């Protein structure tokens, strides 16, 4: 199987979906001639032309809102927010509109838009090019939020998001773009939205996480394995709505649970994961549910030592896993 990197998986998924379905098109800032500031849409403009790879004016509410209109008509827009941090002006369109169109029209209209955005830190992006923004949207029924960790998942889930008949926020970890590589089949495949994935089977402790942190957990697990600690790793993949069943199973399996996010701790996705576990498998637990997250400060800073203090990394993860194993 060919090995590609995370961002190539994005580009391949877009390209193949655009080939498969004429209704699929891409819009956003600098997605055309430049191929995106991260080059996620590289080559699409040349292949599909400027009508299907639209450089829009610099206005996120319009990017989302125009996409929503086109989606209601029957198109399959894939809107790019240049950085997840800049999705904020589009919150009204996403929460008030996209998420509620099917429900408010009693199933008369629907809105199959995919909104892609690079999120996450570790790239010297400072306060406004490093944020995790999923928690802002993870209370909005009607919306789905996908946050893949591997090239394989990226490709399969992005295709499913585009084909899905409801709005999907597809968040790509920008640090993973070129860092994370993996095997991706040449044959066509898709992966189901709403399903978590066991990235590693284990018996002593359970780690539940998503995005780049999955890799930190896998690295740490390898080290701990040498010490005789076996780690079970669940990758949430879709962070809203959560795969409750998979979470309950994973937590029950070992009774010792570590939840990890790169986001600020309070109010993050993993709070909800903890709530699900404490509601459903309290008596299976052998240790308090442990959360490892970014500090509750606005976002990560620019200066390298400051960024490092905030940003999640394999050492912090390993440390927390070892603590839990020893509990």
């Amino acid at each position, binding site marked *: 199987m060919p090995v590609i990197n995370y961002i190539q998986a994005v580009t391949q998924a877009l390209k193949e979906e655009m080939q498969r379905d004429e209704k699929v098109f891409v819009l956003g800032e600098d997605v055309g001639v430049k191929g995106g500031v991260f080059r996620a849409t590289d080559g699409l403009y040349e292949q599909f032309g400027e*009508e299907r790879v639209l450089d829009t004016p610099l206005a996120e509410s319009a990017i989302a809102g125009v996409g929503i209109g086109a989606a209601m008509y029957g198109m399959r827009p894939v809107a790019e927010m240049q950085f997840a941090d800049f999705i904020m002006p589009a919150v009204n369109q996403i929460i008030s509109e996209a998420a509620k169109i099917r429900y408010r029209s009693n199933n008369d209209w629907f809105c199959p838009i995919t909104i892609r955005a690079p999120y996450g830190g570790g790239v010297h992006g400072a306060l406004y090019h490093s944020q995790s923004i999923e928690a802002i949207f993870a209370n909005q029924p009607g919306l789905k939020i996908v946050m893949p960790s591997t090239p394989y998942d990226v490709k399969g889930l992005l295709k499913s998001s585009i084909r899905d008949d409801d709005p999907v926020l597809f968040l790509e970890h920008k640090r993973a773009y070129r860092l994370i590589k993996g095997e991706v089949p040449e044959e066509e495949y898709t992966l189901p939205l709403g399903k978590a994935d066991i990235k590693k089977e284990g018996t002593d402790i359970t780690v539940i996480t998503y995005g780049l942190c999955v890799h930190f957990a896998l690295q740490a697990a390898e080290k701990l394995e040498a010490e005789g600690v076996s780690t079970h790793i669940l990758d949430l993949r879709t962070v809203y709505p959560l795969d409750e069943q998979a979470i309950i199973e994973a937590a029950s399996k070992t009774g010792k649970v570590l939840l990890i996010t790169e986001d600020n701790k309070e109010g993050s996705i993993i709070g909800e994961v903890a709530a699900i576990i404490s509601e459903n498998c309290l008596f299976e637990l052998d240790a308090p549910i442990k959360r490892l997250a970014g500090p509750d400060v606005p976002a990560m800073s620019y200066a390298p030592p400051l960024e490092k203090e905030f940003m999640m990394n394999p050492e912090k993860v390993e440390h927390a896993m070892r603590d839990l194993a020893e509990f």
Partner: protein
Amino acid sequence: MVNVNRRETVTENRHKKLGLSDEQVLEMYRTMLLARRIDERMWLLNRAGKMAFVVSGQGQEAAQVGAAFALDREMDYVAPYYRDMGVVLAFGMSARDLMLQGFGKADDPNSGGRQMPGHFGQKKNRIITGSSPVTTQVPHAVGFALAAKMEKKDFVSFVTFGEGSSNQGDFHEGANFASVHKLPVIFMCENNHYAISVPLSKQVACEKISDRAIGYGMPGVTIDGNDPLAVYEAVKEAADRARRGEGPSLIETISYRLTPHSSDDDDRIYRGKEEVDSAKEKDGLYTFASYLREINLLTKELESKWDEEMKEIIDDATDFAESAPYASPETIYRHVYAE
């Protein structure tokens, strides 16, 4: 010579020049009248404690119906706002449908009683579902127009909003996007002088809302919103332009909100009775009726026939909707996502 002397007393036939037949203008008037009568009935029902909420189009029917008739009602898409009963009636929504949404009943085609009255949407009639946050529909209409361009379809999209709402960022962003991409969309601002209690002078400092068009590189016109023929003409021109691939237009219609903002509002706090009364004298429903009478199209007989017909239609719709069932409680769990 005789003609010249009589000029001032003979009303000119304006609609023929616009290519409108007698039947069409009568149908326009009938639609305006029906919108008004349904609206009035809703207020009665509200004051009688039967309908919890009403938001009105009274005073704006001329603009709404004039505009709708200038569109292709078999093909074009409309994104109306909450006062646009005239638009949705012209696009095929029925009196029963409107009463069903007024009462919030299960068979309301707009939302099955999920949304408040005035939140229109009906796919089969190409009425795009709307919400409460104002102006979000503007980019949506642009999106439909983008689809028309991409799919090489001949339809245009038409979107309305109040003058207060024209100050939202979504108006600016949507209008600019449409013009850059030369999309077939018509932006119509129904300027009724108030945004709830806030008068025009505290909403904008420009002379005309249509002055904003130049900043998007599109034509902008301000039209007497009480004159359905003038609005028809402007919207027709904008629609033709859009279909020719020349891009969007901004049309401002000037009228007045004859009722309080909604059934929850008391407008006496912020405006005087005289102001409302003097606006009533220019009410498009009456001035258009006068025109049609003067050119002998609207006869006494027709008027009383329609009066009766409408009473029947509205009685029927009211009874039908009032006795229709609500959706059952367990339905609220449905249609969050595709099933």
